[in-house]
């Protein structure tokens, strides 16, 4: 078995490795991936079960729970046969839900460095599978039918070579010949909706001394300055991305025949990977001959983020603001590289205006009017920031506003109006507050929570006084929210009296709400399956007479469930992807 490669690192000849017994411990690369919550995993496994059956789901579940593993370990944990596991891995690779990579680790005690071949599930890509309809909707708004078909084909098959795409469309009437097909693929690649597949097995070298050092120093400082180190997932993905120039380059080839021949002689990248897995030889080789294409989920995620931001602006402000905001998005779109961008590039009034009048709704706006809308956009809550007469979109703030709205509306529904007020008071104040205004002076405090007080500053506002709710009732509501994990609490003992301090910890709360969202999404999906079964039974009996009404009702029920799930998925993106 060659899956757990132990080989010499070409950059470090073994002769140079001569550690004394007291040398530092072998360097380990952290295997932490971004934490996925309990229901996040359950939901992802549920999606995989629905799409690829229980075996693939089992492998996926194992990798999500344990983090990246070598083949041998996956076989051990899943108790499936090796061949079966390999095939499951191939399915996941084909559908872009799995990234293999090589990880270098120091051997220690004079041994050579080890390199292991590991497999990592791409959680985000698994979730994207329920968004395919949204992706298609975006393409259909911007491109022709052929492009929509192309995207659909790619989504269905995960990754394809241009040859495979051409083959698929050979007999289709909508394709309009090879030339049109190539042109449309080219268009989609230029728009970044389609990209080259990542390197099949990127190599993660040990971080050099300089790279490792600042991370340690940062870690030692206070939490504020601490910059979150890149997760392993981010590092693997970054290493796997083809260089920018390659990623979105699609050469129009007038002689497709020649290309075809080449393809027939060589295997596709996938085939290579399959061969590699089957023969147990090195799988890290990238086939330069055959390029595989796939849908670029990142770009679609960005577009979805744009759409959601526009809707937030529309509901908070009005249609005009949304029009101007859309123009700003379009004007700055080409500059965006990441999904989690904090803000757009700064834009001048004139460049925004030039974009506004491109749209039908914006055509009747004067420059002065657009400027007044921009002023509205930049006043509280500021969705747009102004510096020296140029405007940039404050994505971070918009997303935060959306997250806060979501959490607050849950608090309102779950705990009522007074709780909603208390929650808003606490989250806007952002620090510990007492249940009511009993002056607490630091020297009278003994016992628990004292440490935390010095860092948070003493509370001098009472919640019940600020909200005008009786103390007892306030304490009641607060502790209910605390039990539901919506608040943090600290107990303080000052002599015979005990004080309770409360706080909203937005970071923890967001994670918690996101986990609930995964759970709720899973439940919606399970309920849809249940309703579908019932529908089948009715279909079996025939949809005439009394059954017709029931059938119609079931259709409505399904529609409500499905549309709720899509809306909830938007919210999941707001909390997870953006």
């Amino acid at each position: 078995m060659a899956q757990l490669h132990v080989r010499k690192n070409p950059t470090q000849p073994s002769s140079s490795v001569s550690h004394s017994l007291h040398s530092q411990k072998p360097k380990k690369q952290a295997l932490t991936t971004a934490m996925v919550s309990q229901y996040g995993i359950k939901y992802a496994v549920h999606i995989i079960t629905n799409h690829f059956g229980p075996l693939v789901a089992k492998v996926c579940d194992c990798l999500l729970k344990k983090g990246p593993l070598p083949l041998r370990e996956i076989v051990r944990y899943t108790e499936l046969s090796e061949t079966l596991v390999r095939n499951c891995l191939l399915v996941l690779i084909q559908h872009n839900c799995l990234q293999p990579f090589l990880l270098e680790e120091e051997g220690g005690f004079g041994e050579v460095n080890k390199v292991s071949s590991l497999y990592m599930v791409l959680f985000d890509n698994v979730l994207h599978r329920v968004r395919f309809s949204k992706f298609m909707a975006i393409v259909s708004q911007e491109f022709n039918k052929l492009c929509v078909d192309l995207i659909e084909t790619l989504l269905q098959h995960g990754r394809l070579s241009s040859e495979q795409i051409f083959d698929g469309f050979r007999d289709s009437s909508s394709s309009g010949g090879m030339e049109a097909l190539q042109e449309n693929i080219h268009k989609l690649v230029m728009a970044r909706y389609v990209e080259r597949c990542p390197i099949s097995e990127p190599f993660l070298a040990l971080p050099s001394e300089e790279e490792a050092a600042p991370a340690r120093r940062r870690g030692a400082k206070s939490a504020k300055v601490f910059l979150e180190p890149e997760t392993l997932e981010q590092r693997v993905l970054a290493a796997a991305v083809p260089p920018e120039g390659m990623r979105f380059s699609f050469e129009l080839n007038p002689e497709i025949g020649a290309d075809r021949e080449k393809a027939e002689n060589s295997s596709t990248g996938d085939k290579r990977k399959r061969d590699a897995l089957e023969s147990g030889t090195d799988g890290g080789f990238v086939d330069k001959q055959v390029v595989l294409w796939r849908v670029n989920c990142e770009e679609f995620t960005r577009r979805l983020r744009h759409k959601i931001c526009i809707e937030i602006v529309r509901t908070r402000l009005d249609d005009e603001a949304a029009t101007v905001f859309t123009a700003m998005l379009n004007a700055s779109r080409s500059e965006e590289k990441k999904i989690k961008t904090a803000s757009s590039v700064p834009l001048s009034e004139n460049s925004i205006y030039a974009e506004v009048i491109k749209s039908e709704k914006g055509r009747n706006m004067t420059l002065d009017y657009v400027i007044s809308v921009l002023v509205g956009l930049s006043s509280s809550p500021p969705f747009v920031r102004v510096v020296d007469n140029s405007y940039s979109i404050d994505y971070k703030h918009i997303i935060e506003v959306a997250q806060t709205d979501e959490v607050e509306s849950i608090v309102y529904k779950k705990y009522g109006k007074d709780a909603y007020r208390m929650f808003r008071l606490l989250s806007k104040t952002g620090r510990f507050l007492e249940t009511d205004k009993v002056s607490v002076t630091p020297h009278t405090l003994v016992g628990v929570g004292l440490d935390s007080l010095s860092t948070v500053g003493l509370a001098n506002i009472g919640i019940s006084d600020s909200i005008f709710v009786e103390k007892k009732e306030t304490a009641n509501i607060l502790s209910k929210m605390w039990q539901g994990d919506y608040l943090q609490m600290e107990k303080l003992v000052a002599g015979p009296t005990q004080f309770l301090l409360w706080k909203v910890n937005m970071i923890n709360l967001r994670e918690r709400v996101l986990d609930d969202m995964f759970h709720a999404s899973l439940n919606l999906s399970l309920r849809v399956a249940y309703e579908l079964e019932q529908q089948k039974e009715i279909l079996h009996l025939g949809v005439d007479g009394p059954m017709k009404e029931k059938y119609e009702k079931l259709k409505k029920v399904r529609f409500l469930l499905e549309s709720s799930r899509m809306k909830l998925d938007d919210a999941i993106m707001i909390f997870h992807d953006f």
Partner: protein
Amino acid sequence: MFSQSPSCRYLLSSFYLRVPAFCTGCLSGEYCNYSFFLFGSYIWCVEDDTKEPDFNSTNPASWSHGYVAPEAHQGIVSSSTYIFDVLSAGMSRLQGPSSLKRKRPELNSPVQSLTEHERILYDVIRSKQDIGIWTRDMKKEAKLPDNVVNKSLKALQVKNLIKEVVNIQNKGRKHFMATEFEPSKEISGGAWYLEGSLDTEFIESLRQLCKRQIEKKGVATLEEVTDLINSYPAFNVDVTKQQIEEILRTLIWDNAIMEVKSNGMGEFASIPFGKVCYRYVSKGGLGGEPRAGALASIPCGVCPRISRCTPDGVISPKTCVYYQKWLDF
């Protein structure tokens, strides 16, 4: 809720209440001089309130017997509960202004006629001024036996030299204070408390009034809102800027208004640049309820049993009662 008292500006009969309230029909900030009649849940605004209404008639207009006020002042019928709120707020504050003044003991004061024990106790209580004193502390300080203290307390109360007050910090304790003092903020709880409890009616009506003012103006400063509220004839208690600020805070927590800084342009044109003011949140949802988010709109989002709900468990989406209700249309 209402009681008739000779000093009351409000005239109350078993059927109707005539009040110098303001008119919801012309909530323009100019207060009309018309009087209001409240009957059941109806309120009318009339021009001449000197004539007695005829409640035997089935025509609501003649219940007032006066002239029905010009149209601009008649947008009121449905708002009677609201007026009611305002009224009760005003009513609950009837004693307001006078209670703020400190009463001096009367000239032929009974202080001279105190027994020795009564005098000791009175001095202890009086020395505590507007803080007052708890009976147990009093006993300790006066060093008198329990029965003597109890007897003297009664005597002092009868002679109107001391009074029992509610201590907001500890309502269960008997707390006394010399009659000449009014309970301090620490004892009474401050302006928002009435006899030891939160004066929720007063607070709620102030909140509604402030909200309406800001809604009508779009944006307003604290000073503007305070002035407007104080010019309402219905409130015979002056509210301070600080009180209004506290009220406005609660409106912020309600997401009914938001705090913004004037940029001196557009809607802020009349407000100096950089000044903090309050803007009405027009899209705060219906009745102050926030717009339900994606999770809050489905049963699982607000489900008390979510932590025990599993795909194949006893509580599951297949058997869920909340789903049953939600999908029953």
